[in-house]
């Protein structure tokens, strides 16, 4: 456990260093960027001094790390407000969207995969597996655009992007859901088929249990374990920024914020979003490690 925590801290340190060096390598001078094109050299120079940009690289890096340890991610060049504050205001929408997306992908993928396994080799199975093959081949942002066009623009049933009530969540979540449901369908199907061939399933059947009971009580519970891993990893990745989907739907999440920061050379904000993203991924993975033994008793004995 402690090793895992140290691992996350180490990862955060590496990521912060990499992003610091990358942003330092940006050809554009942030002092000039903040001052604007009309500023005199004196003004630009003063801004550089104010931000500590006139200091050598290692001094800037040291200061950056020191502030980081105190939870201070610096001040955005563009917005002039603390980065932590700016990111915090985007975290809510990001978590909302991430949650909606993992519900959508599992909500579509699992029923399809379970039915496919139960009716293995039938026409339903073949059509479903063909469909997952095609949706997995489509870019998720393309599915987003397509839904925007058909459901939003042509049918006019749902808002065409932006942030707001529940209805604004449906299309982006559906886009991600359709795009990745195929993985869930395939994983649950092949895990189920694997399990259905095991001895304890034969035992359950020979006890005279009905097929539905065998499938649900004995096979499905075990088959869900790998799905939980996928769920956790997806949630971590989605919450750390669904960059492209947020761009398509104008969703004010941390991914859209990062792209904007990158395009506007807002160094502290960009570094902050990458770091917070890495932190989210690390923490969720840690939480998964804790949840696992609760789900799978076989792992408890290993400790």
């Amino acid at each position, binding site marked *: 456990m402690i090793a895992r925590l140290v691992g996350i801290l180490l990862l955060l340190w590496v990521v912060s260093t990499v992003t610091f060096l990358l942003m330092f390598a940006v050809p554009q001078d942030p002092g000039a960027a903040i001052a604007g094109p009309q500023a005199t050299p004196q003004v630009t120079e003063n801004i550089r001094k104010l931000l500590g940009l006139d200091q050598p690289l290692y001094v800037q890096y040291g200061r950056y790390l020191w502030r980081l340890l105190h939870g201070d991610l610096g001040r955005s060049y563009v917005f002039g407000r603390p980065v932590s504050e700016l990111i915090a205001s985007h975290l809510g929408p990001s978590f909302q969207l991430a949650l909606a997306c993992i519900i959508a992908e599992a909500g579509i993928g699992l029923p399809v995969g379970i039915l496919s396994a139960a009716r293995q080799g039938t026409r339903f199975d073949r059509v479903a597996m063909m469909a997952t093959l*095609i949706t997995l081949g489509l870019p998720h942002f393309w599915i987003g655009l397509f839904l925007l066009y058909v459901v939003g623009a042509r049918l006019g049933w749902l808002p065409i992007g932006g942030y707001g009530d529940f209805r604004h969540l449906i299309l982006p979540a559906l886009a991600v859901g359709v795009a990745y449901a195929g993985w869930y369908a395939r994983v649950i199907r092949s895990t189920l088929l694997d399990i259905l061939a095991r001895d304890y399933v034969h035992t359950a059947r020979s006890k005279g249990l009905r097929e539905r009971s065998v499938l649900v009580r004995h096979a499905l519970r075990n088959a869900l374990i790998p799905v939980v891993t996928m769920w956790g990893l997806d949630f971590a990745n989605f919450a750390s920024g669904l960059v492209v989907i947020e761009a398509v739907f104008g969703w004010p999440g941390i991914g859209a914020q990062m792209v904007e920061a990158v395009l506007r050379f807002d160094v502290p904000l960009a570094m902050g979003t990458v770091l917070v993203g890495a932190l989210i991924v690390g923490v969720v993975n840690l939480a998964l490690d804790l949840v696992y033994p609760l789900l799978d008793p076989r792992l408890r004995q290993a400790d």
Partner: protein
Amino acid sequence: MTDAARQSFLTASARAWRTLVRDRFALAGGLGVLFFVTLAVLAPLVAPYNPNFQHAQGLSAVGAPRAPGAEFVAGTDLLGRDLLSRVIFGTRVSLAVGVISSVIALGVALLIGLTAGYFPGPARTGLLWIINAVLSFPSLLLMLALVSVLPRGIWVVVFVLSVFAWAYPARVVYGEVLSVTKREFIDAARAMGASSGRVLFQHVLPQLVPLIVVYFTLRVPATILQEASLSFLGLGVQPPTASWGSIIYEGARAYRSAPWIFVIPGAIIAGAVVSFNLLGDGLRDAFDPTSSVRRRGGP
């Protein structure tokens, strides 16, 4: 390779080939891949127009793009360029990016996986540490950070798409090398006095060929999708060069009035990705007679 080893390798390959051509999904995938590669190579001969030429009749009187019709089969884009020609030339860019970055990623993966697998000690420990570190990176975030500081263009896209992609196959290669080196024929080669280099290249490497071929075939479509994402954010291939993703990016602005601009390249991407995946799955089944899960239930 010894004669016996070569013979068994050839037998295995022949068996794999027979399984492959009997698998109609893999065959369809292979034909699809062949189609897209031919399209990319013959682009100047196949495309009806210059992909970057802005046709005067390509825009209506009010400057709107033309819908698919007799003159422009797939319609025109927002600048009056022929969409079909752009998609055909975009095939070159998208496939090249996919193939080249997969080759780079797998080359690095082979080098590191072989070294880590064959030479125990500090080299192995260090390499495994690096592999695991790269695997734990939030790679999409760092890819964006990289793209933001580098000049935009095709080669930067290739670099960014391979810079994190080698870690996973490197770990797979490492595991495979560990298991191959435990087999008797490696001991036999060593006992006959073969050098490390000879054992590695003559005996271990050939055993990795199926793994590499399968991974490559499955890596290319993943890279094609990533390139499309980068280009869609405006951070990938730059105008006027067309890639499938950049055409969607340009078409997204007019998704309501000119939906064909984003719909057509998206369908083409799906066609290419599905072809590569079918071929890759088929190759995996063909090389590994025990993995028959897929054949039992369709694709």
